[in-house]
């Protein structure tokens, strides 16, 4: 069973196209405390590579990605 992650903030990125999923994650991560988790639900498959790449470049961490039917849920931990 996958461990439940309690997010500090949830954002809906459904229907948004590149670069907006990354932009919204970047914009919202600053709203949670360091160590907190942002949950983002996207429909753009491009975000599967984009959001983890964004996290690596900004020094944050993608804890988990859940893939549903054309729905991708990211749990991003704010590291700094």
């Amino acid at each position, binding site marked *: 069973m996958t461990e439940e992650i309690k997010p500090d903030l949830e954002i809906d990125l459904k229907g948004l*196209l590149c670069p907006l999923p990354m932009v919204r994650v970047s914009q919202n991560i600053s709203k949670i405390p360091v160590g907190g988790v942002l949950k983002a639900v996207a429909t753009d*498959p491009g975000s*599967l590579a*984009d959001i983890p790449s*964004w996290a690596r*470049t900004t020094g944050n961490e993608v804890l988990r990605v859940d893939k549903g039917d054309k729905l991708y849920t990211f749990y991003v931990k704010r590291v700094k």
Partner: protein
Amino acid sequence: MAEKTINRELANVINVRLNRQLLYYIDICTRCGLCKDACHQYVATGDVTYLPAYRAELIRRVYKKYFTRTGRFMPSLIEGREPDDRLLDELYRTTYACTGCRRCMYYCPFSIDTTWLLGVAKAMLLEAGRGSPILTELAGAAVMKGENIDLFKDVILESLKDTEKEVQQITGDASAQIPVEKTGAQAMYVALAGTHTILPVAVIFHHARLDWTLSLFEAANYGYFLGDNKLAKTIADRIVDEAKRLQVTQIILSECGHAYRVMKFLYEAWAKEKLPFEVKGIVEVMHELVESGKIKLKKDSIAEAVTYHDPCQVGRNAGFYEEPRSLVKAVSRDYREMTPNREKNWCCGGGGGVVAEPAMDEFRLKTGMKKVEQIRATGARIVVSPCENCRLQLDGLNEKYNLNIKISSLMDLVADNLVAQK
């Protein structure tokens, strides 16, 4: 470091870029003001700091202060200025707001390229550590993806499986494919992130029986918008290296105006090498496929009124006016032209990376007013535009101003109106 030394180093950014073209742009402006009514941002806001000539003037004044004799001894005589915090704040606001549409250049009697001058401004801002943070992050993510492509390859390929199934359904051919990493393919198509720019093209290429392969990278280049040519080249290198490795003879860039500009007009100068393949945009390729009879379009199949928005980077800055129009007109029963159009077309307000900057959302939608007026005047229900940035902006304008229109890419328009091949 002392403030004076820092300012001199910043001013030196202009000096190291000084060539005949830049000197001409710095010297020749007569402040005639003809560019005033050409800029959608000035027209919509009435804010003089958005005048094209004013934005460029900030760079001119720094140049005059440091690199002219009068400027060195009596800067006030020629309004020379130091690149201090106040100037840099203003430069940041006006430079990263510019969409790079070059409408001002078209109307300037001396063809002064304000965007070029603002490229120097961006270099100065970067030197001062004041580059756009969001564009820096997006460019960094693209580089990171390039460096770690093996980590992402599986998820990219997996997400393509669904798209491939859709291609098979649409074409009625269970063997239809989205080829990836196909060595020796004639063309490599560079899409944008997501599958919406892959599906229609895969359908079109299947109909045309084109020998192609899909790039693992996206065409967009936020390093270019940031104004960091080195970073922009690194991002473009991902595509160039892949194309070289696969030995394709042509790369075809998706409907992304600035990506085409980077690859077609800038990359070779940055890399100081001639690319061993041809660079094309999907707009010209679709036009060629129709002209050569490789694909056929359903004539007059759209009954609703259709108009076409010339993306600045496809029209004014690359010269494709008639090719996209011939495709749109072929399938539209009621085609309506916006006024003005072609080289005089108004920028939609979404170029230059401003769609990526949340702090600019309000400004961006406000400065799209000219485009809103143009669309309304046509009475069209469908607006076609072959640029992702333009479409993002048009979506925003549609929502904010209740335009009640459908925005379509040219790829979708073509793919949805193909005559089935025997």
